[in-house]
Each structure stands twice: as C-alpha cells, then as structure tokens.
C-alpha cells in the first residue's frame, strides 16, 4: 500500500477546497472549504508521519485541529454577527474594506 | 556626570515640566525662559572646562548601549562642538523671549506644548553635536527631525503640512543613506579589528586606511545626508519652504542651528574618516559650494517673501562655509597647509556667526511681520520713519549678513576667502562676487521695507490701496509701534555679540583653531605618505 494515494487524495481535497474558497459566495460554504483545505493538510501530515515513522506529523495535525476549532468558533461568530446586521452571508457584500 | 550630560538632560527636564503647564501660556513662557537661561549659564563652566591644548575630545562619557554591535552611549566635545552647543544655548532663550513679540500661535495651541517641543529640540541638537558614537549620532540625527516636524507642521503658516513633510522626507532620506554608510564603516572595522565598533575615535583610525574606491562610496553616503542638511544647491529646496512656513522661533533654530549639523558633519565625519575620498571629491563639493554662493545670492535678490529671502541668504552662506571646509590643500606641502588653515577656521566661525546674524535677521523680520501682518516685501515701505529702532535693528542684522567689517560675519567670510584663495584661487574669486551680491540683496531689502515714502498696505490693513503713501504719524496712530523695552532686551545680546565678535573674535578663534588643526592634519598627513 503506497502513501501516494493518500497524498493524491489530500491534494484533490485541497484543490476542491481552494476552488471552493475562490468561487463560492456564501460565507458558510467558503468557511467549510477552508476547513476542507485544513483537513487536506492534516491528511498529508499524518501520511508523512506514517512514512517517516515519527510522531511529529501527527502532533502537528492535532495542533492544526485545535487551531481550526478555535477558528471555527471565532469565524462562525463573525459570520453570525454579519448575517444579523446585513441579512446576508454573501462574502461579496462585505467589501467595504478597500481602497 | 559631566557638564555636557547636564546640558543635554536639563532641557528634557524642562520639557517634561512644561508639558504639564498647558493651561497657562504666560507661566509656561516664564518657566521655559528660566530653563533656557539656566542652560545658557551652564555654558560658562562648560566653556571654562575646555582646554584648547588638551585632548581632541573632552568631557567624555560612555555607557554600553548595544554591546553586541559595539554601540555605546558616548558623548564628548571638541572646540567646534563646544561653539555650536554654546550657540544653541544662546539662541533658545532668545527664541523663547521673542515668542510674544513675533508669533501668534495657531488657534487652540498652547505655548506650553510649543515650548516643550523647543526644549526637546534643544536637548537633541546638543546631543547630536556631542555624540561620539557614529550609530548614536545617526539615531539622534533622525530623532532630531521629530520635534522639528511637529514644530513646523503644528505651529507654522498656512502651508505648514506640506513644508513639514517635505522637510522630514528630505532629511530622513539623507539619514538612511548615511546609515548604510555607517554600517559599511562598521563592517570595515570588524574585518580589520575582528570585532565591529561604532566608536568614532576608533573608526577614524580604521576607515581612513581603506582603499580609495571604498572610501568614496562611504563618503558619498555621509556627504549626501549632510549636503541635504546644510543645504547645498541643488538639494536646497526644502529650506525655503520649511523656513518660510515655520514660526519665527522655529525658523531661527532650523536655519541657525539644525542646518549646522550638516557642515559639522563634514568636519567631524566626512573629512577625518575618509581623507582620500575627501581629496578626490573636493572639487565637486567646491563647485557646489560656489554655485550655492552665487545661486543663493541671485535668488535671494529675486524673492518677494521675507522669510524665503532669509532662507536663500542662508543657502548662499552655507556655500561659503562649504567652500572654507573643502579648500584644504591636496598636496602635503606644509606652507600650503598653514596658509589654507584660515579657511577652515573661518568656516567654523562662520557656523557661529551665521547663526547670530541670521538668527537676528529672522527675529527682526518676525517683529516686522507681527506689526504688518504680512511677509510680502512689497507690502511694506518707509517703516524706518515710523519705527526707527526696528529699522536700525534690521540694518545691523543686514550689515552682519553682508559681512561688513566690524561685524562678526566679516571675520569668518574674510578668513574663508583668504584661506581658500591660497589653494583654490578660482573658486575664491568667484565667491567674492557673492560679497557684492550680498550687499545688493540686503540693501535692496532694507530699501524696500524701511526706506522711501511710508506705505499703507500691510501696515494699516485695508487703510490704503497698494502703494498709497501715508503720513508717518498715521502709522503710530494705527498701533504700529516701535520696539518696546522687552523686544530690545531680546535683540540686545545679539547686537552686542555681532559687534563684539567682529572687534574681538580672539576667544572664539582660539577655541576652534586646535580642533580645526586636528581635522586638517587628518587629511593632509595622509597626503604626505
């Protein structure tokens, strides 16, 4: 069983996530796509940990998960408050911070 | 604790005290004046402690600052620095004393804030002249811009923001290039000594032996910073804007003291550290210097605004100073060295005398502007009939500006031209044309403002149309008063010094001559090898 498939899978997941971030407008979906990218990275980390026979990658994956969880908390809260004030969760509506 | 450190710290204490006195302008002015005069009195022990025959740097102190890079908080002074420090200590109380009779601060600004910035500026400027660590000098050179930026930008004329930003950017740019050169010198030292240092005395001995090509690049870095500061043509255009927009007191400090950091830098850093490069590039500097003399003079004659006029006059004078500094002989011949020595001594005394003459000129112009409410020359005429004492003061300041013998500036200009004539006769002869031009622009200004029929425009507000002649009595009636006792008291020390140092300049010349000899020998010995 070669690790290549795992890596291919994670690359695929990352690409889906990246495209999702770029093309989708709904903030929740964009957010989910970010999570998808993070998890793709986690998968890579675990795979390499397995290949190298060390624990570093797995530990790193845990850290990523913790950070992702924290991010979800803050991010969803922000999206919620934006939705409450604007009645919309589209990322294109919140473009005030520009030139 | 040396006297020098006391002099640096005292104004800072004053600034802290003043920042708590924002409500009461009168009290703040008195307290600031007290600090200024105390500082001036402290010059007496400092001057008394200086031994002209002693070591190059005196009153030295040193503390570790960033030991890893060999950076120290070290201060000391030679005769040149001493004279400049004395000038600052003299000008600050005059500026504070003249505040009420020259400037109206913008609405909502307190005198306390203004004066505490002035005192901070004083402390930093003294520290710049006293710094003997190249990195420390750089840091102070840049920090010094901050209070000046706020002084121009916060308290100046209508176009003050533009002037302040322009001033800051110009100087800051020069400073950064100087930093690059300083780091270059540092790495030369670390190659040679195995351990880098920014100590000036050590760097001088190391860097001066570097190959000429390296020296030239490092020299140019320092030179650019100082040429912007001193302003040499064509890097001068920030000065007319800054001096034109700054409040009178700030303009005095800017033109009188801050700009001297540039010429001081030539003497302290450019020449001793990079003697080979100085010799190679001296003709370039001399061309800029003579250009400055002629260009500044001709432009001064064409100005329509009194404050910009003074800025261009200063540019011409800085040309003279640079001429004197860079006319050292390029061969090591002893007679030439001896006979060109007056040029550099003249330049250093010019730094002092220009501060006195121009300082007085600016303050007098401030008093004129306070009365007439306009800085445009064409708004005035015949003022000497209404205000004879003010007219006399303008004439004295003007005569010193045009270097009339018997005034202080004559000694300097004479020495500069006499000394530079022995090594660089062509440049010196071209610069003497500046003497004639100086008479032309000063006397023309005096004629337009003070002589002729008494004129109405600025002096009486809407009283008369342009060019209307009015009776002298009417001027007095409308509140154009001659100088009062307080205003005369502010100007009197300057008048006494202008004439006193013109008749008996020996104390000053004796103080600076040994330091100049040391500077000159650093470049000439090299040639003897």
């Amino acid at each position, binding site marked *: 069983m070669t690790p290549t498939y795992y890596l291919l899978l994670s690359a695929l997941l990352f690409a889906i996530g990246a495209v999702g971030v770029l093309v989708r407008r709904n903030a929740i979906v964009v957010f989910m796509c970010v999570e998808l990218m993070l998890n793709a990275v986690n998968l890579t980390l675990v795979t390499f940990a397995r290949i190298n026979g060390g624990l570093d990658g797995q530990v790193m994956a845990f850290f990523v998960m913790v950070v992702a969880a924290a991010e979800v908390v803050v991010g969803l809260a922000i999206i919620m408050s934006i939705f409450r004030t604007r009645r919309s969760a589209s990322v294109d509506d919140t473009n005030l911070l520009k030139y | 604790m040396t006297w020098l450190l006391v002099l640096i710290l005292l104004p800072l204490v004053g600034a802290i005290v003043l920042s708590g006195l924002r409500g009461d302008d009168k009290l703040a002015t008195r307290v600031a004046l007290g600090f200024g005069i105390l500082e001036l009195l402290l010059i007496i022990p400092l001057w008394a402690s200086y031994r002209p025959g002693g070591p190059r740097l005196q009153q030295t102190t040193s503390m570790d600052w960033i030991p890893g890079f060999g950076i120290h908080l070290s201060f000391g002074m030679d005769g040149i620095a001493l004279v400049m420090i004395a000038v600052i200590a003299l000008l600050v109380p005059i500026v504070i004393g003249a505040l009420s009779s020259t400037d109206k601060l913008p609405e909502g600004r307190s005198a306390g804030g203004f004066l505490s910035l002035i005192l901070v500026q004083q402390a930093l400027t003294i520290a710049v002249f006293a710094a003997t660590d190249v990195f420390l000098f750089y840091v102070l050179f840049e920090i010094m811009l901050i209070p000046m930026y706020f002084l121009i930008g916060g308290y100046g004329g209508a176009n003050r923001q533009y002037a302040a930003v322009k001033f800051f950017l110009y100087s800051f740019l020069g400073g950064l290039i100087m930093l690059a050169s300083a780091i270059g010198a540092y790495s030369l030292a670390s190659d040679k000594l195995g351990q880098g240092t920014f100590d000036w005395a050590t760097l001088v001995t190391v860097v001066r032996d570097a190959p000429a090509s390296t020296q030239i690049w490092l020299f140019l870095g320092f030179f650019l910073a100082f040429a912007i500061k001193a302003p040499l043509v064509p890097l001068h255009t920030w000065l007319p804007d800054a001096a034109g927009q700054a409040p009178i007191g700030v303009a005095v400090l800017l033109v009188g003291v801050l700009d001297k950091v540039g010429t001081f830098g030539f003497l302290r850093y450019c020449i001793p550290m990079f003697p080979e490069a100085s010799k190679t590039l001296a003709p370039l500097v001399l061309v800029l210097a003579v250009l400055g003399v002629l260009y500044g003079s001709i432009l001064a004659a064409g100005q329509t605004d009194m404050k910009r006029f003074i800025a261009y006059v200063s540019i011409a004078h800085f040309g003279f100073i640079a001429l004197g500094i860079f006319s050292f002989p390029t061969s090591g011949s002893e007679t030439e060295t001896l006979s060109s020595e007056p040029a550099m001594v003249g330049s250093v005394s010019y730094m002092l005398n220009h501060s006195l003459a121009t300082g007085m000129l600016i303050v007098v112009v401030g008093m004129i502007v306070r009365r007439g409410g306009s800085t445009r020359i064409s708004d005035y005429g015949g003022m000497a009939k209404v205000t004879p004492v003010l007219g006399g003061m303008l004439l004295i300041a003007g005569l010193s500006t045009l270097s*009339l013998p018997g005034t202080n500036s004559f000694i300097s200009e004479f020495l500069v031209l006499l000394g530079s004539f022995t090594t660089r006769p062509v440049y010196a002869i071209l610069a003497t044309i500046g003497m004639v031009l100086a008479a032309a622009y000063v006397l023309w200004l005096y004629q337009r403002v003070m002589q002729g029929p008494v004129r109405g425009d600025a002096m009486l507000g809407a009283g008369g149309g342009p060019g209307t002649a009015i009776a002298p009595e009417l001027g007095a009636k409308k509140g154009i008063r001659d100088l009062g006792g307080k205003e005369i008291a502010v100007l009197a020390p300057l008048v006494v010094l202008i004439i006193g140092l013109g008749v008996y300049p020996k104390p000053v010349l004796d103080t600076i001559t040994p330091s100049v000899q040391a500077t000159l020998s650093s470049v000439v010995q090299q040639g003897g090898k």
Partner: protein
Amino acid sequence: MTASSWLLVAFPALGALILLVGGKRTNGWGHLLGCATVVLSFVYGVVLFFGTTGEDAANRVTDTKLFSWIPVDALQVDFGLRIDPLSVTFVLLITGVGALIHFYSIGYMSHDAERRKFFAYLNLFVASMLVLVLGNSFVTLYLGWEGVGLASYLLIGFWQERPAAATAAKKAFLMNRVGDVGLAIAIFLMWKYVGSTGYTEVFAAVGNMPAGVVTAIGLLLLLGACGKSGQFPLQAWLPDAMEGPTPVSALIHAATMVTAGVYLVARSNPIFNETADARLVVTLVGAVTLLIGCVIGCAYDDIKKVLAYSTVSQIGYMMLAVGLGPFGYALGIMHLLTHGFFKAGLFLGAGSVMHAMNDEVDMRKFGGLWRKMPITFVTFGLGYLALIGFPFLSGYFSKDAIIEAAFGQEGWKGWVFGLAAMLGAALTAFYMTRLVLMTFFGKARWKDIKSSDGRDFHPHESPSSMTVPMIVLAIGSVGAGAFFALGDRLSEWLAPSLGPLEEFEHTVIPHAAIPWLTVALSALGVLVAWLVVGRRDTPVERPENVSFPVRAARKDLYGNALNETLVARPGTWLSRALVYVDNRGVDGVVNGIAAGLGGGSGRLRRMQTGFVRSYALSMLGGSFLIIAALLLVRFS
C-alpha cells in the same frame, strides 16, 4: 605718546555710540557732543603732529599694536595704528575739516528733527576714516574702508523717505563694494605670497615677489581706489551721492572719503614703485577721469552735481599724480589737501546758497545773489579762484605742480598726460566760471518764480555757525598751497612715508612755459564762459535743442545708461529667471518625484478591491510562485 593714538579714534567712536544708543534722550545736546568729540580728536591730532615733528626724520614712523584682532595660527592680524607723517597729515585734514563741517551742520541741520542722528553718523564717519588712515595693516585699512562706506551709505540716505536718496545710497555702497572686492583680493594675494598683511612686512617683501603678482596687486588696489574715489569706470555713484545733506557732500564726497583711493595708492607706494605697468594704468585712469569729470561738469545746471563732477575730475588729477610714482606721490597728497580746503569750502558755500533758496539746486533759478549773501559770495569766490588755479592761490601751486610733473614723463606719456591735465585746467575754469556767473551774477531770476513747494524765495545770509567755517576754509584755500609748496615743505615732511620727491629731468615742452600756458588756458576758459553765460541772460528753463556733446554730457556721457543695460537690467532679469527655474525646475524635480510616487500608489491602490476571493486568489498565486521558485532552485 603715540601709544595712546587710539584715543583719536575712540573719541568720535564713543560719540557715535552714545548718540545712537541714547536715542531721543540726547536730542538736546547731541550736536554739541558730536562737535566736541571731533574737536578733541583734532586737538590730540595737533599734539601728535608736534610730537612727530619733534622727532628725527628717521624716527617719525611708529607702529602701535593695540590688540590681537584675527589670530589664526600663522595668520596674525593685529589691530594696530601707525603714526607717521602721512597718517598725521590725514588726521589733521579729517578732524580739522571735519570739525569745521560739524560746526556748519549745527546751523545747516537746525530744522531737521533728526539732527542728533546726523551727528552720530558724522562721528561714525570720522572714526572710520581715522581707522582707515591710521591702520598699520591692509586689513585694518579695509575695516576703515568699509566703515566709511557704511557712514557714506547712511548719510547719503539720511533723508531716506526720498526714494532718490535711498537709491543713491544703495548705488554708492554697491559700486564701492565692487571696488572693495579688488582690495580684498589684493589682500589675499599678499597673504598668499608674503604671509602677512601688515604694511611693514608686505612692503619689505615686495622686492621678492614675482613681478606679475606685484602688478596684479597694484591693479587690484587701483580697483579698490576707483570704487572709493569715484574714478573711471566706477565714477557714476559720486554725483548721485549729492542726494545727501550738503555738509555730507562737503566732508565725505569732497574733502576726505573720496580721496581715500589716492591715500591707498600713496600709502602702497613701495608696491607701485615696483610695477611701472600698474602705475601707468593709474595715470591713465586719472587722466580719463579728469576729462570725463570736466566735460560732464560743463553741462549740468544742478550746482551740487557740477561740484561733484568737479570733485571727480580733481581726484582724477590726484590719481594722475600718484600714478607718476616717486615724481608725484607728494604732489597728489598736496593737491588732495588743498582740494580738501577749497572744495569743502565750495560745497559749504553751495549749501549756504541752498539754505537761502529753499533747498533749490538748479542754478538757472539763482542769479544776482552776491548782493544778498556777501560772505558766502566772497568765500565761495576765493574757493573758486583757488580751484581754477588763480596765480598764488592754493590750487595754483598744487595743480600746476601736477601738470608740470605730467609733462615731465618721457615720450608719448608726457604729451598725453600733460595735455590732458592742461585741457582739464581750461575746462575747469570754464565750468566753474559758468557756475559762479549763473549763481551770483546776472539778473535775479528767483524774483519771478516760486520754489517747487510754492514758496517765494527770500535769499538771506546764513547764520554765523555756517559762515565761520566757510571763512576758515576760504583762508585755507588762499594760503594752504603756498604754505605747502614753498620750500618743498610738504614733500619733505612726507618723505618718511612716501619716499623723497624725485625731480624730473626735462619736460616735453619747455619747463618755464608750462605755468604761463596753464594760466593762459584757464583765462581762456574763463573768457569763454563769460562769452557764453555772462554776457546775456540765462533762461530759467533749460534749453533742450542742444548739440550732441551737450546732450551726452547731460546724460553723464551715458555712464549710467551703460550700467543700467550691462548690469542692472540683466541682473534683474537673471534673478527672475532663476527664481522661476528654482521653483519649477529644481523644486519641480522634487515635487515631480513626489507626485509620481503618489500617482503610482494611486494606481496600485486599485488592486485592493475588497473582495475576499481576489485576495485569496492572489495569496494562492503567490504561494504557487514561491513553491515553484523553491522547486526550481532545488531541481535545477
């Protein structure tokens, strides 16, 4: 005794200081103090004079160092005074004539509210002039040299509310400054080649200097002298200087300051002795100037301007004399002294006339004044006779000696200079006779007209404070020449300073004929003047349809026009052009860079769209680029 010679300078300097600092408080007694200080100096000068005559001829030169003025290692300029026959002579002239003119000013300026200031400036002038003649180095001389320039500036512009006065003052100072540059560069040359600026050291070293340098120093000193003495080509300021009060014209612009150039050349005689070329130029300048002055003097109707051009031309004589070197130094100084008497007297007389005529200066409005002002007429007349060289009056002795010495030159020089000097004498006789005829004789033209401010003229004799100085000066005009010339008194007295007066071997025309010829030519000038002016009535309005020479002379032989087109106008133009270049060009580059940067960032700013995904895309692109770069480095 000579050690306290600084007192000479100190008295008037102190007077000026007290009067200027004291301000209005000294109005009541300021004029008295002003006179007293000069009288004190004069008395002390007399004491010094007798002290010096008491010495042997060899010991008559003493230098006194007062203090170290500009010490810079090798350069040691001391403030020192030299008492020698030449300087003592000048001290007596300056303080003597000065004191008389101070007295005169008490009356002349009595109606002026700022009389106190006038005396302060006069004292300042006397002090500076004394520094000029007493200094024992060229730098000290330079101090006095510019000091008198300042005093002259202040006094010409004394009535500063008049634009013409202010402009004339500025012009005088500027043209002097041009000359001063020459003097300054001469001092630089001395420092470079001698290493000192003191008279003793420089004169001792003249022999060892390269000949070219000595000539250069001589010519540069001459430039300084031309500026101060109103010599060609820097003569234009002196007639304008007549805008000042008349006592000023008498003291500064006739008797003392304008002769400083002659003093400079005479004082530097060891330098000029070494350089025949520079001497020749001095003589040429003198000859040209004396003719220019005479010609223009014939055309003016302004009494003071005629006298001013007469001064220009008489100083031309002096320059011509000192340019002859050892043949002429003492003659130049002698003419300077006699001229000091009669020209000061003439100016004071003119002032007296103006005082009587509501400050009118146009001679066409005078006429027949001799009845009304007998004292003025007699003293003026004596000065006039002295000036035109009436036999045995002072001008006769001093001017004739110069003309003879000019003819004493060899070859073409003798002819040119001699004839120029002789022609000048004839012209002098013409214009001075014209002046006297128009002013004192003929119909009283002032009866039918009014002054410019609408008052009638009531000519009257001046108060005694004015007439007494005129009388004293008239006595000097009569007797001084004989006193100086007979027995070579003056030239022997001055020999320690100027070297002995050399006698020329032969003259290009017979020696004995020269005085006769000169007197005859002068008489011819008088006769022509009487034929032209005296025989018929002078029109009050100036005739305008005149021949070309008269028109040219009325325009100062186009000297001012030349200055205007060559210097003043291009200067103004250049200044304006450069202001434009500085604002638009030099500052334009700076502001252009700033504007370019600002504009550039304005464009770049547009990339911040506010859309999250565009930022995300750029991040993604950036990451790809970085990774690609890493891979490229790794695998290539």
